[in-house]
């Protein structure tokens, strides 16, 4: 399921910033966590900042990877009811779903932005990063999710207009 769509996305990868950032975050999480083990056992020195940094990277991973999963159409959705319907009704429902999802995401982005701003003055205890940095992942991720939801919708519509069937999930 996700393999086919990721295969497509792999072509010409590093011109794609989202994919690049996601890969970098993953590699950094591995690195930070591995260094934490290394320091504890080899240098007998437990790091104070590594766990916190890894957690904040993980928040960014969560938000951006969710957006990426919209791009690759990997999110779980119950299609078997809607797919029973005929073409016209299904198109109508798909548009309705895009509308509902977008409305929720707009609200989420707006409130996340307010939340990050209210956290701007707080400082993380051991890394000394402003808390707005990890918390901004929510509105950045939400905006990207919105972008990919709308983009997929537009692409699906234009392929349908050309008389081709839309990409299968």
């Amino acid at each position, binding site marked *: *399921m*996700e*393999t086919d*769509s*990721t*295969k497509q996305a*792999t072509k010409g*990868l590093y011109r794609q910033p989202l*994919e690049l950032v996601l*890969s970098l975050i*993953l*590699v950094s*999480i*591995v690195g930070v*966590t*591995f260094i*934490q*083990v290394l320091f504890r*056992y080899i240098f007998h020195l437990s790091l104070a900042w590594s*766990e916190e940094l*890894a*957690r904040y990277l*993980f*928040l960014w991973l*969560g938000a*951006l*990877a*969710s*957006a*990426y*999963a*919209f791009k*690759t159409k*990997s*999110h*779980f*959705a*119950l299609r*078997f*009811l*809607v797919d029973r319907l005929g073409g016209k009704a299904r198109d109508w*429902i798909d548009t*309705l*779903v895009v509308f*509902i*999802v977008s409305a*929720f*995401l707009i*609200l*989420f982005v707006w*409130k*996340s932005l*307010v*939340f990050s701003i*209210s956290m701007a003055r707080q400082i993380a205890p051991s890394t000394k990063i402003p808390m707005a940095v*990890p*918390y901004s*992942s*929510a*509105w950045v991720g939400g905006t990207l999710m919105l972008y990919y939801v709308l983009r997929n919708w537009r692409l699906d519509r234009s392929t349908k207009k050309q008389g081709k069937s839309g990409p299968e999930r």
Partner: protein
Amino acid sequence: MGLVILIVFCAALALSVPIGIALGISALSGLMYISFDPDFIILLPQKFMAGLDSFPLLAIPLFILAGSIMSHGGIARRIVDLTLVFFGRIRGGLGIVVTVSTFFFGAICGSGSAKTAAIGSVMFPEMKRNKYPAELATAIFAAAGGASSLVPPSIDLIVIGVVANISIGGLFAAGLLPSLINLTALVVLVYFFARKLDLPMGPQLPWSKKLKIIRDGILPMFMIVIVLGGIYGGIFTPTEAAAVAVVYGFCLSFFLYRELRPADLKKALLQTASLSGVVLIMLGTASMISFVLTFERIPHQIAGAITHYASNWIIFVLFVNIVFLILGMVMDALPAIIVLMPIIVPVAISLGMNPLHLGILVEANVGLGMITPPVGICLYVACGISKVPLEKSIRTLMPFMLVLLITLLIISYIPQITLFLPKLLGF
């Protein structure tokens, strides 16, 4: 208010809103029901963040990445070859090898669908050459993938540990014997199928080749020792074990075997990102729902209702099984785990159950849910590999589901199986 949330959630699901968003929308509807104050909604992003902000959860993308690197880097192939040496000469050997190697691969890789994909794509051409019916191969891939979700370090076990506040190391230890029961049951079933259909044995290998395969397979197997031994021995946390697994797998397949090309690494990273996104958005939005429900004391009411009807653990376990089986059939189990586990764990404890036992039997349900139509992720992946239409695979899959249902009941009603190892290891 619980009813409002439930109706909104079901309606959103039926319309095919992605589950992660459907959870968020129903949480939002619950919040609006409590109060129309727009300032209240700021709790949604806050709870989304709080749901993800936990170090143990980091193990999820890391174990997915470890599995992904290993299936691209030729490690899945080596595990298959190794099991072929030991189990290949039994009737139905290839089918048994699929089952056993999926379980072994599961001890490194966290995701059920990734296991099914990794082993299935390696084994399917071989099984086809040996005249296995495609439906049977599909059923074996799916059943092994789903049933091995009890093998540590599975993603759902990590989530169960985090949301229900159970020791993840303890769950990893508790899952071992039940997964062995699942494995044995599946192997026996495959053997019976092989007898009935007169399937061939695996290839006869010369001793020199066998020794080479064993030597080749030792290092991948050593990974299991590092991961599980490290966690059980208290050397590192599950998250750290996952990071070590990624680094070890990368070194093996990049420097030693030289099968992982940079392009494969990119593919592995992006696959991990995509799968993590699917899991993490549900974790975030399900914790929004958990918060709204708790705010209205609904878990308390549900728990009260459960204790009212289920006066002892035997009925309670039956109830838990039924609920999770039904939920597992129609949706991904993760949201159900996140929302329900915190509710049922206190009830289980009050009925004298060990939370580890509850976690494992819920996970056994989840594994079964991965192969039951209409929504079974392992079944989808297996059908994708064999190109068998989903409807056609169900008939052959039936006996597998039945066998796993029986092992589920065994795991449910003989807690000693689950609790023996954790007690031995002192969790």
